[in-house]
């Protein structure tokens, strides 16, 4: 009789766990409170155009790279992935100048060294860090190994301070941290986050034509193919504990799903109220989780362009400054996203009710972002057909992230022990997964999904076999 697994939340982490374990013979039921599965992979339509909510581009998907074998296993490789310009997948606009970052470790090193020859040693040191991090990516499968110990040490080092010590030229530092928006780079960011995420994009960078929802749809189809269920419009309200184990998941619709194991793939701060009737979960754990800080959110402009008005930009542009921007072009339609960090506190006053002042504030902020973006894309203002905006309030509503945070819980190098939330919980058959545990991003969430499944099954051999297919 197959064991019953209930997964709360159908974002990337929940769906990847569901797929992995359905193929291992578990009877999987994924419960999603939203009308659509996908979480931060969701897309939406405005002006007859599809926009992404959270997915922009993915690194390390090429053959032999970190995600390749896994995405092959997930049956995601034949989606319409488009490689970004290998001579410059990222463009950093800083101090009035433009710097391209090319793909390939050697090309990346050579290109930066040609612009900053006095920093050759520092650039090589950084490249070695990227290489080592990639090499040790799956070391979590062997937690007692030297490789894993070395990896964990990187969580206790400041990314900013390490860059300052390794790269002495402030302009080069600005270039190397200019795309930090995609990792939420702050003074708290651990070096591991910088090394893993940034390094993966050096290998290769890809956009998904048609949007991130396809990833969710494929994983859902894969789970169903294995006899599993993915149910939407189902809101989990509580977990039932019997004799120290979770035995069922209860919903707002007064349904009860029996479970031998549960994976909570939603924000842990949304899970804690569901554990109120679980005596094994003591106040100290619940309070700790509830007091953890979240990363900042984003203010996003989703721009429908006049067809043919602006050439497609096959790279991601980052403009540094007091209001840093990330500019993302859509490969298969006249559309563009502009993102800038924006804290929940900026929008909190409108959390319960949006009014004219909210709309006016969004408008002013959007105009400012367009003005900044036009420094690099002077034809942009005239090319705009319509601008739609989203704030952390929007993000919280549609993706369930607390405070609309872009990257989930904040990992802090000052206290990795207390800011890296374990996938294990006080209940022996309840696990966490998703961007809030180790790292955000497609790579981070996928690694955590593997870790969760490794711990749940108590064996790593089958995961190693999947990885070794590359």
């Amino acid at each position, binding site marked *: 009789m197959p064991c019953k697994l209930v997964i709360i939340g159908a974002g990337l982490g929940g769906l990847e766990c569901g797929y992995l374990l359905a193929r291992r013979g578990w009877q999987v039921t994924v419960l999603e409170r939203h009308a659509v599965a996908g979480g931060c992979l969701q897309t939406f339509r405005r002006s007859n155009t599809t926009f992404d909510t959270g997915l922009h581009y993915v690194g390390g998907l090429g053959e032999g790279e970190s995600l390749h074998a896994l995405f092959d296993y997930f049956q995601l490789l034949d989606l319409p992935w488009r490689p970004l310009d290998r001579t410059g997948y990222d463009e950093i606009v800083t101090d009035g100048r433009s710097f391209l970052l090319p793909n390939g470790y050697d090309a990346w090193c050579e290109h930066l060294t040609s612009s900053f020859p006095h920093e050759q040693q520092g650039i090589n040191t950084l490249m070695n860090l990227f290489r080592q991090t990639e090499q040790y990516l799956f070391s979590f499968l062997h937690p007692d190994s030297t490789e894993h110990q070395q990896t964990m040490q990187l969580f206790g080092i400041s990314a900013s301070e390490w860059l300052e010590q390794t790269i002495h030229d402030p302009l080069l530092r600005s270039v190397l941290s200019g795309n930090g928006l995609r990792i939420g780079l702050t003074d708290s960011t651990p070096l591991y986050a910088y090394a893993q995420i940034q390094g993966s994009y050096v290998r290769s960078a890809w956009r998904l034509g048609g949007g991130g929802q396809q990833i969710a749809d494929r994983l859902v189809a894969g789970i169903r193919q294995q006899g599993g269920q993915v149910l939407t419009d189902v809101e989990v309200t509580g977990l039932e504990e019997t004799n120290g184990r979770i035995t069922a998941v209860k919903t707002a619709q007064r349904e009860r799903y029996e479970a031998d194991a549960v994976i909570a793939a939603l924000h842990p701060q949304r899970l804690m109220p569901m554990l109120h009737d679980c005596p094994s979960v*003591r*106040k*100290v*754990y619940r309070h*700790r989780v509830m007091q953890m800080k979240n990363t900042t959110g984003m203010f996003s402009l989703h721009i429908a362009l006049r067809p043919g008005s602006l050439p497609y930009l096959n790279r991601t542009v980052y403009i540094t400054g007091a209001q840093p921007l990330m500019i993302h072009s859509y490969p298969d339609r006249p559309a563009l996203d502009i993102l800038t960090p924006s804290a929940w506190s900026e929008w909190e006053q409108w959390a319960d009710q949006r009014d004219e002042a909210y709309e006016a504030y969004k408008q002013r902020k959007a105009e400012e972002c367009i003005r900044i973006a036009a420094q690099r894309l002077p034809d942009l203002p005239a090319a705009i057909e319509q601008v739609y905006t989203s704030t952390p309030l929007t993000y919280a509503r549609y993706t369930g992230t607390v405070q609309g945070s872009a990257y989930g819980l904040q990992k802090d190098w000052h206290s990795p*022990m*207390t800011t890296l939330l374990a996938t294990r*919980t006080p209940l022996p058959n309840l696990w966490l997964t998703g961007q809030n545990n180790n790292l955000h991003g497609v790579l981070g969430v996928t690694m955590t999904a593997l870790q969760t499944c490794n711990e749940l099954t108590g064996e790593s051999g089958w995961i190693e076999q999947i990885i070794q297919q590359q």
Partner: protein
Amino acid sequence: MTQQELITKINTVLAEEFEVDAAVMTPEANIKQTLALDSLSLVDLVALIDGEFGVKIPTADLPQLTTFQRLYDYLGERAL
């Protein structure tokens, strides 16, 4: 805060958060056993001490904190 006030606060906070009877938290009692700590709840303890007393306990210092008395002494030297 006097040493006794500190001890009272430590015991009150630990008893409340770890849901144990404060009476079993004697100075020579073993913290790990009394609070039923495993590697996961050890992190809860570290986070709680940081939040309530402003003291960050480095991983290297944890092994020495075997009894409640040792914890009182440790925080007595460092707490605000």
